[in-house]
């Protein structure tokens, strides 16, 4: 049982904080689990917006003001290039940290974060929140129980015309963003694949960066005994489905669907459209209890997991040691990247594209 509310400081008050963390923290405040005590963002307008929601929170000019006296848990939701330096500073100050994805811009930075948490009193969780969706947890169980038989292949298509309300053009610049769609969406997707399937043997990677960042990319992933394709885009409207095929059947998950998966079986006319509930035993019989969390509740439960871990009541679902795994593969991809085929280019354009692509390495 958590007696006093955890004091939460928010580092970065941009789009992700306004759209996701603010309503989640507001609900946790209502439940008496937390109290937002400090806000930091160099952009005054962004801080002001959040202060309207958390009027009791102090606006601080520097994150050095995030001390144990005022804050227990810091949520780092700043641009990724600041994640490592801010997280390390906060851990060294004795705070626990929930760091938004991607954990860092480079593996070296992420390793420094892990070294810092190893020496720190607090915990470090990474905001790969899709692991908190009941559907992704159910898929992990379906796979580990062998419901689909031996996994044979998978296809993950995720992308749409980009609509995220970014607040700076730096989000799209190679020099500041370090990556594009792979680092942004791919980090979620690769995290799930690693969580479900374990480490791949190899990944072949192509993207369309021609002096800038990747807007489209494709990954051919080799796991022990099966292969899979990942296609990501900030440009095209893709099917936004993950399909896993096994020797006994198939599974379909619609991206960000919190409580629903479809499962079909080999040689069967029927397929199941499942809605996920909590299951309990009543009078010796299994029954459905309450519906599993929706998307927003799952996001809240991510913060709940960090609070419980701070009190030694739960293990972190995504500790830093897990957060770095997808980052390692992303770095591998960027180091071994080749240019995607774009067959609508003229031969001259294709040559020039190849030259510009090489400048991205």
């Amino acid at each position, binding site marked *: 049982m958590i007696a006093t509310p955890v004091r939460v400081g928010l580092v970065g008050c941009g789009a992700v904080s306004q759209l996701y963390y603010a309503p989640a923290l507001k609900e946790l405040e209502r439940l008496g689990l937390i109290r937002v005590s400090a806000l930091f963002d160099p952009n005054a307008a962004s801080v002001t917006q959040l202060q309207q929601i958390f009027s009791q929170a102090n606006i601080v000019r520097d994150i050095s003001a995030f001390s144990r006296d005022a804050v227990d848990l810091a949520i780092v939701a700043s641009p990724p290039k600041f994640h490592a330096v801010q997280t390390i500073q906060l851990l060294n100050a004795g705070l626990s940290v929930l760091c938004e994805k991607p954990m860092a811009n480079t593996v070296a930075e992420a390793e420094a974060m892990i070294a810092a948490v190893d020496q720190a009193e607090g915990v470090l969780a990474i905001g790969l929140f899709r692991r908190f969706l009941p559907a992704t947890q159910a898929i992990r169980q379906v796979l580990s129980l062998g419901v689909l038989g031996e996994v044979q292949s998978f296809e993950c*298509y995720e*992308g749409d*015309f*980009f*609509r*995220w*309300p*970014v*607040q*700076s*053009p730096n*989000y*799209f*610049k*190679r020099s500041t963003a370090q990556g*594009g769609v792979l680092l942004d969406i791919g980090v979620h997707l690769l995290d799930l694949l690693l969580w479900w399937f374990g480490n791949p043997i190899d990944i072949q990677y192509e993207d*369309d*960066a*021609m*002096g*800038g*960042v*990747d*807007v*489209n990319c494709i990954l051919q992933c080799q796991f022990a005994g099966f292969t899979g394709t990942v*296609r990501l*885009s*900030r*440009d*095209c*409207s*893709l*099917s936004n*489905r993950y*399909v896993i095929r096994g020797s006994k059947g*198939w599974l*379909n998950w619609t991206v960000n669907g919190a409580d629903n998966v479809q499962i*079909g079986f080999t040689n069967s006319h029927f397929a199941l459209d499942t809605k996920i509930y909590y299951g309990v035993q009543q009078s010796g019989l299994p029954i459905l209890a309450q519906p599993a969390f929706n998307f927003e509740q799952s996001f809240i439960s991510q913060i709940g997991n960090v609070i419980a871990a701070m009190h030694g009541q739960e293990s972190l679902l995504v500790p830093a040691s897990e957060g770095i795994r997808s980052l390692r593969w992303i770095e591998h991809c960027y180091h071994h990247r080749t240019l*995607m*085929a*774009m*067959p*609508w*280019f*003229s031969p*001259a*354009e294709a040559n*020039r*594209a190849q030259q*510009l692509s090489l400048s991205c390495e």
Partner: protein
Amino acid sequence: MLKIAMLGANGFIGSRAVEMMHLGDMAEVRPIVRHLSSLARLSRFDLDCRVADGFDQTAISTAVQGCDVVVHAIAGDRKTILGTLAPVYAAAQQAGVRRLIYLSSASVHGQAPAPGTDETSPLSDRQAIAYNNTKVQAERAIRQLRQRGDVELVILRPGIVLGPRSYWVTSFAEALLQQQAYLVNRGQGICNSVYVDNLIHAIYLAATNAQADQQTFIIGDREQVTWADVYRPIVTAFDIDLEQIPEMTYTYTSPSLEERIESVLASKASLGFLSLFPNHWRQAARSAMSTLLHPASTTEEWRMPESIQTTPAVTLEMALLQQCQYKLPHTKAEQLLGYCPIVPFAEASRRSIAWLKFAGFPVISSHENQLRSVQNNLSKPVYSSKRLEEKLI
């Protein structure tokens, strides 16, 4: 090198123009978009992108500073089409831009223009399709701005612009997947197509040709093609036979009795009148009306399921387009600009299909295609979204 500012650079034509001009070293291109998020598609390149709203003269003026030419490729609703003209023209003048190229549309001549139509034909803004009228009015407005201003003006009237990300390619592909594709007149109407690269080639010529000021040009592909010619490569790529696409006709349908009664009941006047009566009277009246409009079937549970066949909704625009019997000439562009389409229609189709595959559509490979083509001659496949779904799963 020529400096071109591209307004609407994240759109279908704008983004390909940026790509083609940058990769082809045709010009130093500066993409300009309305929202920060619209930079996403362009961020593959390291370019001097700007964010400015087409309604904001000051912002556009700053964004186009130092450019020789501005291309107005802003798409949108009537308000956007008409409302961005004056600010953009004034901004170009303020920034010392030499020439503005306005992307109009061949639809100013209607979807099925009369034989003999060319750039000299009179335009009407009382056509059945609202978009046509807006574009006619936009042309008139921007010509008037040219009369009073110093920035040179070239108006281009492309036909049906095809290519990667084209609405005409993507919407037909999606309609195929949803079993909503159709043909009118068996697709034998003429499609006044222009592959996007050909249009961009024309934009470049319009930007550089000294004689082009105050001229208007129809821009099209070299070949005369039908809608069936446009659609056939797409249906083949999806392993479907064009013959199995249903033939439809456009019919104007007035609202049904049910729709009309519900519309009257939902009107503000009705709601006000009904509020004079007690609530239980109103509920009883609504219940009686509902029973009348939706009689309950007592045998519903005993009815076997039937495959759901939804009839494609034919739009007036598509019906007119597919009945077109005239290829708009681009003779004037040939003679004055030296325009010569750089991509033949067959290659244009190949590139559009290649993009569909790139964008995740279930395109079968050309090798598969050949094999299936042989098989199709032996046994005609059934046009079924289930088969496409199977390919996806």
